[in-house]
């Protein structure tokens, strides 16, 4: 295919869940589509999607993406992204129990503070597709309640206009200042991000915004597929982010093979030859829009590694884990060899996906709702300090009587405004 060329989306409405590979294929096809060129930039940054604002007094707003420009050109309008820590600090629908990501941790890349002053945090964006926006908008009106996200294109017309085959999609993206990476290897975008001013080694304050070219380091691709209102939760990372802990997989001869932990080489979030013992330590958090060092630390870059390779427990020889690791590695190879070496997407890999049998997990019975796929999945840039959890640890509902849309933490805070057809 053409380098950086367009890929079609997976058909979520006609999805077949015959085996695990189908879910991983869905995720990779979607990632490549989302990062395909659209008339206004990447597809996920086009008019088919909305950016979601940070929470303001518990409310979030749809932000229309930039308007059309010449095909293949980036839009001149800037995006507005927020730091991870500006997530709502009021209890979310389910967050007060699981609180995945709600430690408000700040992640700083290795190269961002050398030399000082620091030039980059990790910045986060939230995005939904038009189907999700319409659904969220309609559902806020006094119409019959639909308890879960649709898994088909057709639901009663009074409630929801017919959607496209991509069904409901929600994305979360993570970015660093493009100046600290080899920009040729990264998908980039222009964005407005919060500007921080160093007060002391232990406190930075915010002051307005600054426009930067950002480089993509991570993306959650989440969406419903036929028969799965719990959504498929997949994640992607740049290959240069952080090393994996050790794991086992099957080689071409069907022999179980160990891939040991190694931090040799150059990583965005791990010092060369950095140790696991020194890693995944939260150096700073955000409190009232200030960045504050955690006890005994200064605001600084920290080491990061992926604790659960391919979403499996490290060093596990469990057949299920070994086979799952092998599936995802195989899938990545299959994808990557179809991309030209000059395609920037060749530098991104799927690190896993997780789903259930179609049951929306409740917080109280996670052990009773078996997770399938990468059951210990986290992204090194999005859940750096919560890697012992998995997506459903936080994205679950109180009980089976609760609205299934509660698995999406932004849903209740969203104010109507999705584009109606």
């Amino acid at each position, binding site marked *: 295919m053409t380098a950086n060329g367009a890929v079609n989306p997976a058909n979520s409405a006609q999805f077949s869940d015959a085996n695990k590979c189908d879910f991983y294929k869905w995720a990779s096809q979607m990632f490549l589509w989302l990062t395909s060129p659209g008339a206004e930039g990447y597809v996920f940054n086009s008019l088919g999607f909305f950016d979601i604002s940070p929470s303001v007094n518990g409310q979030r707003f749809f932000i229309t993406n930039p308007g059309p420009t010449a095909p*293949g050109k980036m839009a001149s309008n800037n995006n507005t992204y927020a730091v991870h820590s500006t997530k709502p600090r009021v209890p979310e629908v389910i967050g007060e129990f699981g609180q995945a990501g709600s430690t408000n941790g700040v992640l700083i890349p290795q190269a961002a503070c050398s030399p000082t002053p620091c030039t980059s945090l990790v910045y986060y964006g939230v995005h939904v597709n038009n189907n999700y926006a319409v659904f969220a908008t309609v559902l806020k009106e006094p119409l019959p309640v639909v308890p879960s996200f649709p898994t088909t294109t057709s639901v009663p017309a009074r409630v929801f206009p017919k959607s496209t085959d991509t069904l409901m999609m929600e994305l979360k993206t993570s970015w660093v200042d493009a100046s600290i990476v*080899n920009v040729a290897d990264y998908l980039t975008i222009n964005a407005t991000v919060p500007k921080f001013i160093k007060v002391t080694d232990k406190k930075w304050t915010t002051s307005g915004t600054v426009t930067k070219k950002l480089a993509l380091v991570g993306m959650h691709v989440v969406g419903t597929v036929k028969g799965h209102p719990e959504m498929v939760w997949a994640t992607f990372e740049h290959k240069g982010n952080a090393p994996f802990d050790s794991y086992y*997989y099957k*080689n071409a001869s069907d022999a179980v093979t160990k891939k040991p932990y190694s931090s*040799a080489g150059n*990583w965005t979030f791990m010092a060369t030859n950095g140790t696991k013992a020194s890693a995944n330590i939260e150096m700073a958090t955000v409190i009232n829009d200030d960045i504050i060092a955690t006890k005994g630390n200064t605001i600084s870059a920290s080491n990061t590694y992926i604790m659960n390779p391919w979403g499996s427990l490290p060093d596990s020889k469990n057949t299920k884990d070994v086979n799952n690791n092998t599936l995802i*590695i*195989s899938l990545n190879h*299959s994808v*990557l060899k179809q991309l030209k070496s000059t395609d920037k997407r060749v530098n991104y890999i799927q690190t896993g996906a997780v789903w259930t049998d179609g049951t929306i997990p409740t917080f109280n019975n996670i052990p009773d709702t078996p997770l399938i796929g990468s059951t210990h999945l986290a992204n090194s840039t999005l859940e750096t300090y919560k890697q012992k959890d998995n997506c459903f640890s936080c994205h679950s509902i109180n009980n089976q009587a609760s609205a299934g849309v509660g698995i999406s933490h932004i849903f209740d805070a969203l104010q109507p405004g999705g584009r109606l057809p």
Partner: protein
Amino acid sequence: MNKIVILVFSMLWIEAVNAQTVVPSNAKETCVVSLQLSMKNGLMEQ
């Protein structure tokens, strides 16, 4: 001059190390995808 050559080589080698180590190249082929390509831009397909 030699230092420059060594530096460039080292940078290339580091990139290669990362690319090789993240996804093992000898895994058993158990999940293969045939990507659905688009002749249009992606936006038209969503």
